[in-house]
């Protein structure tokens, strides 16, 4: 899979590229709109990551041109604006998804992978990690065959964490997934729910599955 990043902030572009390369993507970097257009004309890309504020040729204009020449190329827009109207404008302009700076790299990877799945996601009904089992159809959670009762929010947090074991999810990501943006940064609400979740999922068992990564967020994984 080959991706193009068009971003004028070199450091940001390089850090995103490095992270994506670590996820086994081939990544090209373009520093402004014109260069981006040259790359797009010369190579075939599977996905375009585009900053909207670019020198020479603005991201919005580049997006418009891309939509004319390659209508099916998925485009992820990076933006520093997050007002509702702007979001609507991004989609109208032809973006498939957008990320507001400052974003979590983990979130970027989740979005990129989701956009690259050409076929609809094959939904896995039962998520498993070690002896923990979450059934999306019955919304039941078992560990070691033992049924565990969770509230709706606890279930939501666990399901999100289990969707990608080993990946660290930031509090912001969890909040946006399980709650909504109103709670962003205001409360330690995620911490409280994770603590309740741990009490039910981890405390009675010798192997802990939910891990805290200080300053980043939470993840589920088997080993320490």
């Amino acid at each position: 899979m080959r991706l193009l990043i068009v971003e004028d902030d070199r450091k940001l572009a390089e850090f995103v590229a490095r992270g994506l390369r670590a996820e086994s993507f081939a990544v090209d970097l373009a520093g402004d709109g014109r260069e981006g257009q040259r790359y797009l004309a010369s190579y075939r890309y599977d996905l375009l990551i585009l900053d909207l504020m670019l020198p020479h040729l603005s991201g919005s204009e580049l997006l418009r041109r891309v939509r004319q020449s390659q209508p099916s190329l998925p485009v992820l827009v990076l933006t520093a604006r997050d007002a509702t109207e702007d979001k609507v404008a991004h989609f109208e302009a032809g973006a498939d998804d957008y990320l507001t700076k400052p974003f979590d790299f983990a979130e970027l990877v989740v979005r990129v992978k989701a956009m690259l799945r050409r076929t609809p996601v094959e939904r896995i009904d039962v998520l498993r990690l070690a002896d923990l089992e979450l059934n999306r159809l019955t919304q039941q959670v078992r560990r070691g065959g033992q049924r565990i009762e969770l509230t709706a929010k606890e279930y939501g947090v666990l399901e999100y964490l289990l969707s990608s074991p080993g990946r660290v999810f930031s509090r912001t990501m969890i909040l946006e997934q399980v709650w909504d943006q109103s709670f962003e940064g205001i409360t330690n609400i995620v911490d409280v729910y994770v603590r309740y979740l741990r009490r039910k999922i981890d405390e009675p068992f010798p192997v802990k599955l939910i891990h805290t990564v200080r300053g980043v967020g939470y993840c589920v994984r088997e080993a320490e």
Partner: protein
Amino acid sequence: MNHRSLAFRLGVWYALLLSASFTLVGVGLFYGLEHYLRAALGDSLRRRSTQIEEIARSVPTGTAVAAIGDAIEIRVAPEFNNRLVRVTRAPGELVYRSGVPADRSFDPAAVPPFSGPWPTNSVTHRTETAQHQALMMSATTVEAPSGRYLIELGASLAPGDSLQTHLLLLLAMLLPVLVALAAAGGYLLVGRALRPVDRIAQSAEQMLLQDLDARLPVVPTGDALERLSISVNHMLGRLRDSIQTSRRFLADASHELRTPLTVIKGELQELVHNDAIGRELRDRIGSVLEEVGRLEHLVSGLLVLSRLDVGEAQRVWVEFDLAELAAGTADQMRLMAEDRGIQIHTSNLARTVVRGDRARLKQVIVNLLDNAIRFTPRGGSVTFSTSAGEKHQALEIRDTGIGMPPTALSHIFDRFYRVDEARSREDGGAGLGLSIVRSICAVHGVDIEVDSSPGQGSCFRLKFPHSRSSLSASSAGTGP
């Protein structure tokens, strides 16, 4: 009536000045009239006196003094003319005295005799009968062949006096009427003259609230009013420029901070995942990341505020039940509250339909509830309730927390204000929560009332305009 208003004060000044000048004119008129009447009367007396002098001189020696009387009766007709004529021959013989005048204004017999030496030239003086009838008298001495005569003429002062009395009465009656008219007229005129100023003030006020680009219509009167509207327009222009500059700065600054924040966060997060670094280093990077998170929160808070300042939040207004939103939000945060040993009560919520941006208003409830939970000790409670009044409907959030001193109440909505520095910082509040609450409420025309005292808890009351009136407010707000 506003006693300090310009119209009132000018009206009073008007009335005072007018009554003073009216009094002056009245006094002048009164004494002027008196002087004129006396002078005219004196003249007429002297003219008659001259006639009688001639009669006295023409009387030949030895003629009966009665002839003088006859001549006077014929030529002067004193009774008919309401005059007194008295002729005395030296040393003291009364030669003639006219009879009772036609208007009976005095009794000739009661007029006291001339006192003192007889004057050689004509003199006038005032005298009074025993019945207090005032007369003006002129006296002169005539040397005639038949002897020395004192000729006295008199006329009643009553007609002149009564004229003056009438004038005085008239003036006294006119003065209050005139003053009242002047005061009322002044008040009305000034009010009328100030009406354009009032209009300018009103339009300026509206423009500040709604549209900073609008300008006052300049009335080309060529006077102070035109200059006023022009300078108000200049002021509005400069105000708009400075507001726009500060808003743009805030938006740009928080905007520009976002890209470096992304890089810092990304690089550090990657470091944390690097297995080569030890536990201690990982912990320290985590601590830095926590601060980055706070910075991130701060930047997005500032951006939200600058957006609200520009008045963006008006395009997604819908009608919805505030009670349902409050109850739902409380449910989402209940576990967090219970974790701190705090109960949230929502049983007093009744259906309250308001119009607005649901997501923003949810932010208001989240921020207020978050505050209430953070500042309420274990075992306390937070109670939601709704109420409806004639002019507004209200949502109330009352806690049993630590409360705030009265001095803090006027500052709590200021950006970065903290009632208790140490405590709030420890809790991780950015100091923007209540500013955001106020800005969102301002966009929605919602009044916020706060009751609080230390140890007694706090109560935040959000007063929403009724849905129908908020509808018109929103259409006025989004205008062209």
